């Protein structure tokens, strides 16, 4: 097990370097002049130079040999755009006059307020439906769930959000149509987005876990449990559910970075000032530092989450280490 874990950690290093390189290439080498895009066409050379300095674009791309010679310091050699990105030294946001880290701290909880409850409710529902349906394979409920889930996968999520917004917000007027408020009243604004997440993802998740449960139901330990006369209910809840928890836990860990990121479309539609909306607005504002920083941070977080999920898997299921 330990050999596997160590190898898995070492294998993450080239991937992280690859992510830095990919982000760097997309946002620095391929991208148009970010300073000009931010300042507009009328900006003169002095303004542009000031903006470039603020964005950290006046530094060398990879290594700064001249700077190191002038200042006689090895630190200046690595004071470049590439290493700024690698070591999370993001330039300030032009629009918000704030560091990316601080933006993350203020906007992150808003996204979490919607994503965490939605995720937990969704998981509970998915598992309950999957266990029930797998137990009644081929019956009406099973066919119904499979049909609805494939329908839900075919309709764009945005259409589901719009329909829910129109029905619950405008027709029944149970929830506000859009907007956000901090503190306790956030519940009122979070309810509809949470419902939307559940509506749009329940089908896929139920179908996924149905397959997982069906796989487990065919295994030997289930047959043994049944043979010794255990009631079906107990087989499902004690034996099957515990084994199903393995993919549940690993999936959950892999989903963690996305909880913080929020759903871009959802937050944009309901005007929720979370991380997703921050990215969308930063693209409109040509706020390169924020877009680049968030893409980079999320990717690194995702990479680490995958690593954790693999390690967790090998801890829970000792067979993995034999690979």
């Amino acid at each position, binding site marked *: 097990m330990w050999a596997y874990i160590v190898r898995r950690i070492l294998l993450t290093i*080239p991937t992280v370097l690859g992510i830095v390189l990919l982000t760097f290439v997309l946002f620095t080498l391929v991208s148009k002049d970010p300073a000009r895009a931010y300042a507009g066409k009328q900006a003169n050379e002095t303004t542009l130079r000031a903006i470039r300095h603020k964005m950290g674009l006046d530094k060398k791309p990879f290594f700064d040999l001249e700077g190191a010679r002038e200042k006689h310091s090895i630190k200046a050699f690595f004071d470049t755009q590439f290493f700024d990105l690698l070591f999370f030294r993001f330039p300030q946001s032009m629009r918000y006059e704030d560091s990316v880290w601080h933006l993350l701290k203020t906007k992150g909880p808003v996204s979490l307020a919607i994503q965490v409850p939605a995720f937990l409710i969704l998981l509970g529902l998915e598992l309950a439906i999957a266990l029930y349906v797998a137990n009644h394979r081929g019956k009406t409920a099973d066919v119904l769930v499979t049909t609805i889930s494939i329908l839900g996968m*075919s309709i764009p999520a945005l259409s589901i959000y719009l329909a829910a917004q129109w029905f619950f917000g405008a027709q029944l007027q149970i929830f506000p149509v859009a907007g956000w408020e901090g503190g306790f009243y956030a519940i009122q604004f979070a309810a509809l987005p949470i419902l939307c997440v559940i509506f749009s993802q329940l089908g896929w998740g139920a179908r996924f876990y149905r397959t997982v449960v069906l796989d487990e139901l065919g295994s030997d330990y289930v047959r043994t449990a049944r043979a010794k006369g255990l009631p079906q209910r107990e087989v499902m809840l004690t034996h099957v559910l515990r084994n199903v928890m393995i993919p549940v836990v690993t999936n959950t860990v892999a989903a963690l970075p996305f909880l913080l990121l929020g759903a871009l479309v959802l937050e944009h539609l309901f005007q929720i000032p979370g991380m997703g909306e921050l990215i969308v607005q930063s*693209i409109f504002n040509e706020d390169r530092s924020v877009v680049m920083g968030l893409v980079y941070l999320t990717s690194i977080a*995702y990479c680490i989450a995958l690593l954790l999920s693999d390690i967790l898997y090998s801890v829970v299921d000792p067979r993995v280490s034999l690979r």
Partner: protein
Amino acid sequence: MSMMAPSISVVPDSDVAEISRSLWGDAWKRLSRRPSAMICMGIVAVYLLVGLASFLPVFDRKIEQAVADGYQGPSFKSFDRLLGTDIQGFPVIWRLLYGTRVALLITIFASVLSLGIGVTLGIVAGYFGGWIDDIITWLFTTVSSVPWILLMIAMVYALKGRMFPWFVIENRRPHFAWAEMDPTVMIILALGLTDWVGICRLIRGEVLKHRERDYVQAARAAGVGTGRILSRHILPNVFHLVIISFSLGAVAYVQAEVVLTFLGLGITGRPSWGRMIDDAKLELLRGVWWQAVAATAAIGILCLALNLLGDALRDALDPRLRGAD
């Protein structure tokens, strides 16, 4: 094969009539036995025909011909008003039909791009192994570590507003000039250049198995060149994965267009299904539902057909996966 005189059959006699010579013949037989698959195929064919027809100039004219003063509900009185009109009085039915052009362009070209990259890299990585495999594996691990939607957004962000040497037609004289990239081309690039990871991983795994098979060894022993082994022997044996990926990839591309357009990074300047749903975010609250419903139905039916067809194709072409649901 036909030279072997006594042919040995391991198939029970009752099944002899079912024996077919080719993988594709078998697959077609299995597919044609499922009515749902044939219906889905028919639906996809209809979309394809409409999509091809929508390149006719009459569609360009019709989407800019107002048939009412503003919003007007659906009515059966004329074809133009069958699905109502939008805020400018343009007929929704023609906008919807025109949308198939964008959808067709995006799905075909993005698929060609992503499948082309994915299959090439996958075959090369799987067949040659060694450091080539290491580099390609590293590449797709890296790309798949960036969440897809963020990678697409980063791609569009990088390409947006940049000038490219572009083929423009001015005064009916085609020539090269510096111009901004067309949004449709931008979406195709963003989708195609980011979505090759899945197929690459699949193909690599499959080629790894095929590399050691007898038929490849035999071809190598007979002195067949590497390029020919890859293109004539290995590619046909993994091609079923490409077909399945194509039908499921098309679903993802049609839906991604909606997301990108809604986020303000997608289609501008011409109608698309994504733009129609995007317009609907303000219309719905005013009770104007027809544009949203029309576009949602168009996407929903196409994606449903493609999803079911993809499942049926997987069952027909890759029998080992059958029962995996």
